[in-house]
Structures are given as C-alpha cells and as structure tokens.
C-alpha cells in the first residue's frame, strides 16, 4: 500500500531517462576497468623475462668500432640510470669469460653442436620458479633458458634432417650438453643441460648466476669481465620515458621489447582517460538518479508528512524510498553487467581479430568497481531519503 501511495503516480518517463543514464555510466565503468586491467596483464607470462623489462646495450658506431668510445657500462652509469624515477631496477647482464660448446646429447634428435655465448641475469628479472632456477656443483643438470629463435633454428635443422619439429614442452625433455673449457683448452668439463624455459627477448642462452660464477672462476684466464649489456626494469606505463632515456644515452634494445612497452603505455594512458571519464559518467548518472529520488520525495512531501502524522515511523518511510531505489540501482547494475558481457563478446572478438591475445575472463576489479558503485549509491540514497523525510517531520 505504501509503495502504491508513494510510487504509483510518479513520472515514468523521467525514471526511464534516469535509469538509461545510470545504465550507460555503469556499463562504461565496468568495460573500461576490465580492459584497463586486461591491458596491464597483456604480455605477462608470455616471456620468461618479467613485465616491462628490456635488455639494452650501447649503440655501436664507427667510433666505437675504432675503439674511440666505450661499449661497456660502468657501475656509475648503472647507478645513474637506476636513480631515475621511472626505472625500477638496473642490473648487469654477465657474460661468459670462457669457452662454451653447446651440443645435443639425445639419441632422439640428430647431432647438433655450436660454440655459444651464455649470459646470466638477476633472477628478480625472470618470471621463473626459483626452484627451477638454481644450480650447484654436483647437480645433474644445468638449467638453461633458450632463445626461441634458437629452437626455431633447431626445428628447421631437424625438419631438413627428416625429423618432425618439436614443441616447447617436448624440447624441455631433450638432453643437451655444455662443454666448458679455458682459452688454451687445457681445462675441460662437460655438463648436462636441460631447458627450463624460452625467451623471445634474449638472444643468448641464459644460465643461473651460480653456474656462471663457477665457469668464470674455473675456466677464465683472469681478464676483467666487461658489462656490455644491462637489464632495465621500467615502471608500469612509463615506457615513453625509458625510451627517451635510451635515446639520450645512446642505448638500444630489441625493437619488439620497446614496441610492446610503448603500446602498453599509450593504450594504458588512453584507458586511464576513459576510466576517468567513466568515473565521472557514473558519478553524473548516480547524481541523476539521486536527483530523481529527491524529486520523487518532493512530490511525495504531503504523503510522507501525512503518513508520519498518522503514526508511521519516519524510518519506515525512509526504508520504503531507500529499498525502492536500491532495487532500481540493483536492476541497473545487473543490466549494466549483462550489457558489459554482450559488449565484451564483441570487443574480445574485435581485439582477437586485431591480433592481440588478451584474456577473456571477467576481471575481479570490474566486478569490484560495480559493487563499489552500488555501495556508494546505496549509502547516498539512504542519506538522501533520510534527509528528505526528516525535512517533512
């Protein structure tokens, strides 16, 4: 009866306009938050290198070829780079100072061997389980991260030999060997090697730091190891600044690493703007609904006043208005979520067609933002209803 008295004769057209406004705002909010999160996740796990991490070296010029400028990094240079706000960490990429011969040691694959260049990086930069990335003297295998290009080359070689190419997982079961030796070949040692992961971004074979130290201590001729590459980890979405620094310092990295970082920065900024607009849109649409609530209460001022005079408790009338609006916003939220799911279906398809493989699961954050918007509206509508009713008391 109370609902009939208070809500039956309202202006339905205004209510529908308020609902459409709130619906658009909510859908906009969930969609932008979802894709912002997905974009941030983009690229994570695709490579064994951590997100926003690049390997840089000094650009080789004619003068460096002639030995007039240095191509190695001093500790001071690394410290200077690390002091920049947009750089999280800078660590040297340590290379071997001894000879390494890499070969297959498995009857299932044809013999293949090559002199290789191995490197090690701080494990903080790698997205690999720590237990899979350690080595100590006496271990059966040396774990190794292989450049994917290397596997492609191996597969090409195997195809040419009439053997089917192998996948990443199968490659991890193939036995390899390192033959370590000093320059004069007077000291030699053979060690079994197993692939722990692949990288698209590193061109050399990566080994654990402990193995590199062992090799350099045991087989090096004692000459000082130069740092010709460093690993830089940039802050999320600040790759534009990292690129500027590289340009300024005459450094270079693999283009693909920079492109992904820049893409994420640009789209991240764009989505940030969209998110800002969405929050304003939700705020405005919430305001439209709250204004409608105020209008409804003003139109029902006589009814509310009379009900209280009849003996209805103000809280009961507040609750009636509050529940009505909570239901409306609940309806708007569910509709917004459904609209987002439909939109997501088309957007995910469009993004996949465009060649970007982002995850399709709904993010917790987008649902969280919906719940937060709902709670904020709930609190605001209760306060508005309370203020409106006690004005008539």
């Amino acid at each position, binding site marked *: *009866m*109370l609902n*009939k*008295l208070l809500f*039956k*004769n309202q202006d339905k057209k205004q209510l529908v306009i308020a609902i459409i406004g709130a619906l658009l705002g909510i859908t906009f909010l969930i969609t932008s938050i979802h894709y912002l999160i997905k974009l941030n996740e983009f690229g994570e796990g695709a490579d064994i290198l951590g997100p926003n991490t690049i390997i840089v070296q000094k650009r080789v010029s004619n003068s460096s070829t002639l030995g007039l400028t240095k191509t190695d990094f001093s500790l001071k240079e690394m410290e200077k780079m690390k002091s920049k706000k947009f750089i999280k960490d800078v660590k040297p990429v340590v290379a071997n100072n001894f000879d390494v011969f890499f070969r297959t040691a498995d009857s299932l694959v044809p013999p293949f061997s090559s002199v290789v260049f191995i490197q090690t990086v701080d494990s903080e930069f790698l997205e690999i389980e720590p237990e899979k990335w350690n080595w100590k003297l006496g271990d059966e295998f040396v774990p190794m991260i292989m450049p994917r290009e290397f596997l492609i080359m191996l597969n090409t070689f195997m195809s040419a030999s009439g053997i089917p190419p192998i996948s990443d997982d199968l490659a991890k079961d193939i036995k390899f060997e390192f033959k370590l030796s000093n320059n004069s070949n007077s000291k030699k040692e053979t060690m079994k090697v197993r692939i722990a992961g692949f990288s698209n971004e590193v061109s050399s074979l990566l080994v654990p730091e402990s193995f590199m130290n062992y090799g350099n201590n045991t087989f090096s001729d004692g000459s000082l190891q130069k740092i010709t590459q460093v690993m830089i980890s940039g802050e999320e979405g600040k790759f534009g600044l990292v690129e500027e620094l590289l340009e300024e310092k005459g450094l270079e990295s693999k283009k693909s690493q920079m492109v992904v970082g820049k893409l994420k920065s640009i789209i991240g900024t764009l989505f940030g703007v969209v998110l800002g607009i969405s929050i304003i849109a939700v705020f405005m649409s919430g305001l439209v609904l709250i204004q409608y609530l105020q209008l409804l209460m003003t139109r029902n001022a006589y*009814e509310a006043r*009379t*009900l*209280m*005079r*009849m*003996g*209805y*408790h*103000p809280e009961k009338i507040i609750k009636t208005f509050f529940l009505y609006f909570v239901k409306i916003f609940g309806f708007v939220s569910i509709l917004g979520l459904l609209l987002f799911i439909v939109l997501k279906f088309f957007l995910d398809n469009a993004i996949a067609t465009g060649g970007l493989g982002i995850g399709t699961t709904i993010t917790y954050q987008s649902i969280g933002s919906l719940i937060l918007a709902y709670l904020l509206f709930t609190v605001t509508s209760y306060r508005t209803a309370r203020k409106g009713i006690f004005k008539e*008391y």
Partner: protein
Amino acid sequence: MKIKLDHIMPAPLASIEHGKDSIWGNDIELKPGKKILLNASSGKGKSTFTTTIFGLRRDYTGTLSYDDKDTRNLTVDDWTKIRMEQISVVFQDLQLFPKLTVQENLILKNSLTDTFTEKELKTLLERLEIDNKWNQHCGVLSMGQQQRVAIIRALAQPYSWLIMDEPFSHLDEGNTQRCLKMLDERTTDLNASFVLTTLGDHHSFKFDQELNL
C-alpha cells in the same frame, strides 16, 4: 493520558489579546475521560491548538506536557507511538490521500494497529451512509463525504485523546449527529477523551467541559 498546557503561547498568537479564560497563556489541564468543546471564532487558534497538542509545531512559549512529561523532550519514537496509540486527530483539511480509494485510506491507517476488521470498517461507513464509496478515490468525494471518511480513519486506532478540528463543517445536521454519536460511543468504549473545536455550535451534545480561546 493527562495533557497540561502551562502558559502556552503560540508565536503567531502572541500579539493578540486573549481572555482570562483562554487556554492561551494560562494554566490548563485536559483531564482524562472528558469530552471537551473548544469554542472560538475564526482566527483565534483552533487549528493552532490541534497542531500544537499533536506536536506538529514547536513555535510556542510555555510548556506542553503529557502525563507531566515535557513534550519538547519526546523522541521520534515517542511521537510515533503517541500518534499511533495515544492521540488521534481529525484535521480541518482532513489530510486524506486523494489518489487512494476510501478502502485504501482506511486500511493504511488501520494496518498500523489492526484496530478494526475490514468488515467493521465497512459497518462504520454504513453507519455514516457512505459504504457505497468503499472503492472510490477520496479525491472524487464531496467534502462532506471526505469528512466522514476522515472521522472513521481517526477512529481506526486506539487513543486516549481524539482531537477534532471543525470535523462537521461540511455536514448537515443528520450526518453531524450520526458522526457525533459514533465518536461518543467509541470514545466511551475506549475510556478515552475528545476535544471538538467549533465556531460556537454545541451540536446538541452535552460536553463535560467547555474551553475558550
């Protein structure tokens, strides 16, 4: 419930000179069980009396108390309980809901305390000869019919005091007598009291007390 007006003077009436027997500015006690006539000409504050007693206006000096409790100290919960179970009012402007039917207007009030059954409400309407209006919107009824609906609505709760502000102003003598008889019976049944404000007409009823403004 005893109602005491201790030198009450509503702000709008402060500039008017009131007689020695006026309830304004004097010490007046409304004792339980009495049927009181409040007699005054227009503009003397009959409606102000109703709204002041009912706690709707606070712009007065002096002290209004229920059972020796200052009404200024009553909480929202207290007022709700009082309006639901202790004091019922027939306002001069009736304060019905014009877009609801007679049935809905009565049930909206009656449902708070379940005082009457639907059948009893219909019987009351029948006694006042408006039972045929049960499903009609109050907004389409004549003022006299609306007054009778408002009277029945005021009866649809337990009360200690029934305050009526010129409730028969649009009724003919026959309907006035029927209403007054019903009010008298119900008030007696409840061992309650009422205050009836008029412009001077006693409606041939024997009141226990007569107050002036």
